[in-house]
């Protein structure tokens, strides 16, 4: 009797064998469905680790972005979009036919008249393209041949918060991933010792609008892609130094033990946020050596200080942030997002805008020149612009030399430089009132699609599935603006 039992123990029946075999074949087939490259040998991406496994869809023109966001909306009509017609018709009402059905903000909707306000600043043509720029921007004018000035950006929002959120996340409501987070998700960080997405804030003296951390949120993406806000004080990254009495080896040991505990918890719960946390600790450890090297401005040559203006040595100023942005970008930070507040000139625009331009003109231009002289401009895309434009008519009382301008989403100016966009061109045209676009409109979605393209990403393929839907930075829209691609 023992033998059959023994046989039964070691042998499988034919039926058993066949069903097992079919199961085995089935799982192999399933495996190859789930992992399409399972049966293909070799090739594939040379991924480094999960954080670095970025996949440019094609060879990128730009590797990095520095976005100089002019928060509050600078007046395109006083800086770039020269409209002598407004001076000619100064004080006359904006024709109904031009305004059309444009909705207005609560600030001017009840105004009885919409008197056109010509800019009091002088405009001149600059560079080979003959781009018009006002006297407020002498430094930018001097690099006109490097700029790609787009006069026909347009957006859907008419108030700061939704417009800003739209520019930063591709949607007017909050909690979608920010532009920089998408890039961090799509391309990873070049330098593992620094975050892939850094945020720098500064404030001018003009009427300001807030910026909130929702603008650099990772949204539904993994939290390693969140923007890291640098402090505007002397220590841009707080709490980076080890406390007294703790040295690097001790810190290393502590992190190793902590990681072990976290791994245990991860094994139990499987929450990916736990691994994200461990990765962040590790990066912070590496940042302890990488960041001081970057934030130390004392090694910058004197010519750099003169180029950006001596303010660049005062932490928290726009100029200092521009210089810091260059240093971060040079060290492989994928997306450096600056915000300079104070452009929301509803009244007293001539005075306010003068101050704002003093803050940003020299340093913005210096950043371009600086990247250029290091051979980095071709791989770095610099963007300068606000969340919408300002109206051609006056908000409040119009006098000969004082006026205010309300929000204007239909047409405004943004410039780019480097990163494979055409240098020295002016793209798009507005009508003679500077109110409507007459040629080559560029919607915010188009703007996003084009920037992603420059970074080697197909905006329709950079997706993340969340709550049953595949999301894109460009939502369901966006066309490449081919006219600006070099």
């Amino acid at each position: 009797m023992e033998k059959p039992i023994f046989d039964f123990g070691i042998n499988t029946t034919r039926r058993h064998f066949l069903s097992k075999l079919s199961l085995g074949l089935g799982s192999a087939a399933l495996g190859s469905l789930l992992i399409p490259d399972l049966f293909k040998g070799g090739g594939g991406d040379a991924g480094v680790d999960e954080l670095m496994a970025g996949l440019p869809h094609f060879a990128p023109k730009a590797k990095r972005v520095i976005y100089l966001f002019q928060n509050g909306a600078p007046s395109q009509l006083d800086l770039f979009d020269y409209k002598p017609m407004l001076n000619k018709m100064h004080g006359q009402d904006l024709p109904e036919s031009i305004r059309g059905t444009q909705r207005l903000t609560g600030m001017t909707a009840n105004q009885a008249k919409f008197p056109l306000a010509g800019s009091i600043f002088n405009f001149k043509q600059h560079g080979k393209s003959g781009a018009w720029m006002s006297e407020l921007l002498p430094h930018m004018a001097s690099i006109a041949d490097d700029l790609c000035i787009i006069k026909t950006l347009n957006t859907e929002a008419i108030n700061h918060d939704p417009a800003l959120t739209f520019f930063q996340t591709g949607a007017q409501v909050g909690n979608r991933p920010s532009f920089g987070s998408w890039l961090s998700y799509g391309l990873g960080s070049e330098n593992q010792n620094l975050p892939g997405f850094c945020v720098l804030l500064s404030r001018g003296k003009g009427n300001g609008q807030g910026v909130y951390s929702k603008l650099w949120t990772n949204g539904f993406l993994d939290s390693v892609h969140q923007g890291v806000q640098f402090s505007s004080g002397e220590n841009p990254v707080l709490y980076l130094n080890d406390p007294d009495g703790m040295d690097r080896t001790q810190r290393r040991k502590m992190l190793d033990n902590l990681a072990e505990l976290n791994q245990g918890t991860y094994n139990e719960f499987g929450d990916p946020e736990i691994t994200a946390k461990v990765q962040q600790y590790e990066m912070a450890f590496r940042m302890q050596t990488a960041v001081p090297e970057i934030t130390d401005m004392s090694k910058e040559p004197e010519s750099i200080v003169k180029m950006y203006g001596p303010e660049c040595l005062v932490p928290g100023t726009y100029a200092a942030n521009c210089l810091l942005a260059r240093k971060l970008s040079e060290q492989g930070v994928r997306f450096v997002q600056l915000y300079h507040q104070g452009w929301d000139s509803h009244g007293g625009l001539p005075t306010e805008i003068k101050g704002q331009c003093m803050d940003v003109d020299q340093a913005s231009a210096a950043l371009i020149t600086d990247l250029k002289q290091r051979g980095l401009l071709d791989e770095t895309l610099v963007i300068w612009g606000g969340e919408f434009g300002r109206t051609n008519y006056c908000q409040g009382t119009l006098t000969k030399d004082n006026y205010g301008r309300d929000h204007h989403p239909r047409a405004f100016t943004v410039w780019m430089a480097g990163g494979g966009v055409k240098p020295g061109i002016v793209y798009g045209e507005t009508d003679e009132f500077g109110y409507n676009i007459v040629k080559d409109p560029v919607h915010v979605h188009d703007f996003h699609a084009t920037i992603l393209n420059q970074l080697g990403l197909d905006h329709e393929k950079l997706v993340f599935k969340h709550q049953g839907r595949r999301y894109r930075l460009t939502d369901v829209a966006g066309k490449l603006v081919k006219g600006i691609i070099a």
Partner: protein
Amino acid sequence: MVRRRGAFVANKSLQTQTTVRRYLSDWKGLIYNLAFFLNGLLVFLLLFEDRFTVPIWMQAVGRMHPLVLHFPLVVLILYCLWVVIVEKPDSTRWNAQLADSLLIIGTLTAVVAAFSGFILSKEDGYESDTLLWHKWLGIAISLMSIVLYGSRKYLAPWKLHSKLIVGAFLVIVFVGGHLGGNLTHGEDFLISPLGPSQDETPKVAFEEAKVFDNLVKPVLEQKCLSCHNEEKAKGGLQIQTQALLVKGGKGGMLWDTTKADLGLLISRLHLPLEDKKHMPPRGKVQLTDEEIVLLAAWVKGGSRFDQMVSSLSPQSPVYAYAQNVLGGGRTEEQYDFSGADADEVKKLNTTYRLIKPLSAESPALFVNFYNRANFKSEDIEGLMPLKGQIVSMDLSKMPVKDEDIKRLAQFPELRKLILNFTDVTGATLGELKKLTKLRELSLSGTAVKMAQIKTLESIPSLKKVYIWSTGLSVEELATLKKGQKIAFETGFRSDTLVLALNPPIIVTEKQLISKDEKVTLKHQIAGTVIRYTLDGTEPDSTKSLVYDKPIAITKNSTLKARAFRAGWYGSKQVDKVFFKAGYPVDSAQLLTPVDPGYKGKGAASLFDGKVGDTERVSGTWLGFNQNDFQGYLYFKKPVQAANVTISMLRNIGSYIFPPTRIEVWGGANEKSLKLLKVISPEVPKKDIPGAENLVYEAAFEPQQLSCIKVVAKPLSKIPEWHGGKGGKGWMFIDELIVN
């Protein structure tokens, strides 16, 4: 009885079995005969193939070939497998007849398939070797299966020779079936998904793209070639070569620009989908609108085979199509080397040395180095296994030495090399001439010399060199810029630009300075001279004190400082009031009410050691408007006092004025106070812009005091010139210091 009944039942069941068996054998016989007849007909037709034309009604039979062919395939394969694998000499089970049943079903369906296939082959467009083989193999399968069935008596399925014969038959079935598949779906249909991905067809740069080769041909190949090739030339049309395409099919030339519909090709595309002549036929993958526009534009443009995309006007629809298909302005460089081993790349990546392909599909790699402290020459050496793939390297700020240049010269595929702010002196730059593909070289911030830069001209591929912030003189840079071959980027020069310096920074935050403490200053640009005064005079660049060590405060004073440096204008002045810290006060008491809007921390604000911020009247400032300020300071042990400093605020724009009168009283306690000093500040005669910290020092005979009373009266009537004329002025006080 029981037994007989049982015998009867058994007998009856035997009878039934016999009936069934007979019926079965009859059924097989019937089929066998039918199959035999059909095979005979097939052979007959084959013999007289030349004289045979397919009647129209029979075409339907021919087109059933794809429908019926799968039956014999499946059944015959099952039969073969059964015989080869399962059959044994003792097969006396229920399935003893299975092999026969399968074979006879296979035989009938095979002949039906062969017959219909033969008729289908008479239709247009099937003339090729593949067809020939498929046809004869199909007929062979049909004939062989009937022969197998006929001779099954002699082929006991468990005998080895039967197994071999059936095995051979199986191979023929497979080959015949596969050829048929190739005929319908194309030669490489079966294995193409296993091969390299379809997307990997080499991309062409926009400038080099041809309209026909890179745009039109791929469309024709994808959407038309499967029915118009040498094996299957529907309508007599083959399009695999340009000549055949030009020749056209039975209907003649494919295009005719004199016609409004541009000829056959385009008009067929435009026909409604239901139309029988619509191309591609219903059910096949259709052309997209863009593709139709492309073909129409190409035909309209003269159907030229040599036209370059770049020669077209950007307004042309073909140009727009090309931008989409070829990736717009993306002119990706094509590399003639193959990709590196992914594991090797992964292995060589560290947190301080990034190695990545340019894009997911690109064989080319770029390398970035980070963190100066970790860098070693071996880090370059270690990349040698990837020297065939690395096209760019960024070594900015790494301590790269001259001898490392030789190492870099071993990477023949380098296109871009960045050596900004490295320790390279240029002595070995000549080595780089080995890099025959180098296009961009950045040497900004290095100590390279003119003569060494000249050697770079021997690199024929070199287009751009960055030499900002090197030791080169203005004249040398000018000479280089004149050169034609290489574009030199010299960057920004600050020599002639004179700007104002930032003011110095007063590092010390507190304003009450004890005798052990010092005031420190600094400037962000190292080596900048800071000059200062403590006596209220403006500091200048020649006579004022040079700041070289922290400053002691021996009496209340205003520090004024400016920064100076060669090549810059002197900075603006910074100033700050410092108080000599006094005796520690033990307690204080307010005798009059402080304005509820500005009550600070009450009496404690008077001796908290903090001087208020002149820009903000919140925090430590005590505000008075309706009444005087009166307060006591108490010392537990009497102090030797000689003066009392009162810190107040002036901000005329905000209605904050100096007091009109200050009284200082002192004594051993509240009851024995003596008036020690009266100060009567002047009422301002005009507006003084801005906010200022006012310091009133009431000096008196040194004496022992335990209690000090201070009285200050706000301005009772704001003067005429002020916007708030006639009203009461505000007075802010924040600190009393006893020395």
